């Protein structure tokens, strides 16, 4: 039996004094892919931010264990160093900071945390070029500032590249498909799959079923009103595609 990676028990959280997450439960075991689907405004991004510890997102009750450790006690960077990665829905621009040194810095922060030796520039450049090629990101793009002037698809591919370099235990993909054309979606899907190991897990947050054609989930959860209201297998995603979320939203109301 595989070990639990992430265990969320009765999680409640608020943003700007408004409760968004209301009794959320989920366990992700090693090797599993979970998809969370839900309508706009269901609080899907809030969930990913709460798990990553973004300032301003306050957990009011509940428990979250990551690899058996209390995740909620950790700082944002500690969670990342423990192996939690968030592919962001709208990655922010950081002018002046080019991708290459940024990512090298990030990787070496993780390695230092794990007690591994620093990766030197030569080795890192080799890795970066290799992974970049798989995601159709050429060397010129990797010289640019983070997300500055990137199209939606480029920004999402860059998020995937970071995942490929950092190799997280658990990656949360927050709408990795938004603003992405069909070719880029395939590239991203392949990129994400290439990072999977029997020990790692994936939490895919999405509106649409499309991405799940590439990243096939073991479980699909319908998320609305701050909690999971239904769980099924990949067929549930296809069903949702046909029927929409109205049934679940009504139930909530």
């Amino acid at each position, binding site marked *: 039996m595989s070990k639990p990676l992430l265990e969320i028990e009765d999680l409640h959280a608020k943003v700007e004094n408004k409760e968004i997450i209301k009794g959320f439960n989920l366990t992700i075991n090693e090797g599993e892919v979970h998809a969370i689907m839900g309508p706009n405004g269901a609080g899907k991004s809030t969930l990913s931010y709460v798990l*990553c510890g*973004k*300032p*301003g997102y306050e957990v009011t009750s509940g428990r979250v264990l990551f690899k058996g450790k209390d995740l909620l006690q950790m*700082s*944002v*960077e500690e969670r*990342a*160093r423990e192996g939690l*990665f*968030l592919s*962001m829905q709208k*990655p*922010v621009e*950081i*002018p*002046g*900071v*080019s991708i290459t*040194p*940024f*990512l090298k*810095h*990030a990787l070496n*922060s*993780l390695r230092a*945390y794990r007690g591994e030796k620093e990766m030197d520039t030569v080795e890192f450049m080799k890795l970066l070029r290799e992974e970049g090629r798989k995601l159709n990101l050429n060397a010129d793009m990797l010289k640019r*500032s*983070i997300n500055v002037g990137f199209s939606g698809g480029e920004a999402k591919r860059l998020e995937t590249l*970071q995942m490929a370099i*950092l190799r997280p235990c658990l990656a949360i993909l927050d709408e990795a498909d938004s603003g992405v054309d069909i070719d880029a979606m395939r590239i991203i899907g392949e990129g994400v799959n290439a990072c999977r190991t029997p020990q790692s897990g994936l939490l895919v947050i999405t509106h649409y079923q499309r991405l799940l054609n590439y990243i096939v989930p073991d479980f699909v959860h319908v998320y609305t009103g701050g909690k999971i209201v239904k769980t099924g297998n990949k067929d549930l995603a296809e069903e949702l595609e046909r029927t929409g979320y109205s049934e679940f939203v009504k139930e909530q109301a």
Partner: protein
Amino acid sequence: MTDTKNEIQIADESGDKYKYGFVTDIEADTVPTGLNADIIRIISHKKGEPEWLLQKRLQAFEFWQTMKEPHWAKLKYDAIDYQALAYYSAPKQKTAPKSLDEVDKELLKTYEKLGIPLKEQEALAGVVAVDAVFDSVSVATTYQAQLKEKGIIFCSISEAIKEYPDLVQKYLGSVVPYTDNFFACLNSAVFTDGTFVYIPKGVRCPMELSTYFRINSRNTGQFERTLIVADDDSYVSYLEGCTAPQRDENQLHAAIVEIVVLNNAEVKYSTVQNWYPGDKEGKGGVYNFVTKRAACRGVNSKVSWTQVETGSAVTWKYPSCVLQGDNSCGEFYSVALTNNRQQADTGTKMIHIGKNTSSRIISKGISAGFSNQTYRGLVKAAASAANARNYTRCDSLLIGATCGSHTVPYIESRCKTAQLEHEATTSKISDEQLFYCRQRGISEEEAISLIVNGFCKEVMQKLPMEFAIEAAKLINISLEGSVG
């Protein structure tokens, strides 16, 4: 009160003695505080200066007394009592620390981070005299010999006054006259020492000239005077300053740097300024009122100012270029970083006079903590400056919600064919950016340093290599504690 009176009396007595030609060798630490014509005579005499220079000093002093301290800059500081200052060779303070144990712990931490050897730390903190530590006399001599071969003069201004009076007399005060401004006038009256550089015709200086190789130039920070003359077809790159924060008992600094650039010559002047900024409340920091100006007198002459400023409690500084020669070119690349309670009012002036003159201004201001920073710049094209070109880019970066940043560009054109461009941006390191970096495992402090270094990269690249590495380190250290 009575103490002050006594001191003034002593000053008068010393002056009298001088008048009668009876002068004992006055110890540095017996020159009293305060400023009057006699004090200036003492300074001049102690330095063994010629009469013409004394007369210049006295003339400046007389004029200074009619001037008022300027207050147009966006700076707030306690009134300066000019009579309470000592104007000669910074007499050894009784309060000087006897060992590093007595030195501010924060300062020592910074030295450690910069990787400064213990001996040098002692010198910087004022525990021992600088020349007792920098056993680089032989190094200096080696370089001196190499320079001499090429006819390059690189010495203290005092030495130059004695050895090369014609050159000094010809150029000193020709770029910044004593009437220029209050602080320049004060400097003209009381300057103690500084640097003189002369690059002869057609000579390309084979090394970066740095004050480091001229050990006796240290400890002259208070009223420093620098004069650089680049003769026709010559080139020199000059480095001023030091990345290590230097403690200085003298709170007021009023330096002058004059650069003369003749036909087809080029001067690169790089500065790293890191005078003591005071404690977290801004107490005890240096007031830095500097006049730096370059005159591009020759055709095709070029001057480039590059500066990284992280020190001082109060900075008032506008390195300028007067572009007289046709096709001459002026550049100003600046990174100014203020933290805690620091204040900086800084920028540049580009005065276009000759035809086809061009200038470029890249200014990067970073404010953190409770600091306040103003970019103040003037770009002026005279009627004679046909086809003058200027490009100005002025970016400000704010860290936190309690600092301030202001931009005051003055643009004046009297010439129809001049093209003057100004671009400015203000940005803030956003919570989103910090979250993004931290989510990738990078700590908040490292994230800020990455963003800041990215922000000023364009300017840092203009610094000579080894200086740039030190300056980047310095910026990181100066940012510490800005997270909040």
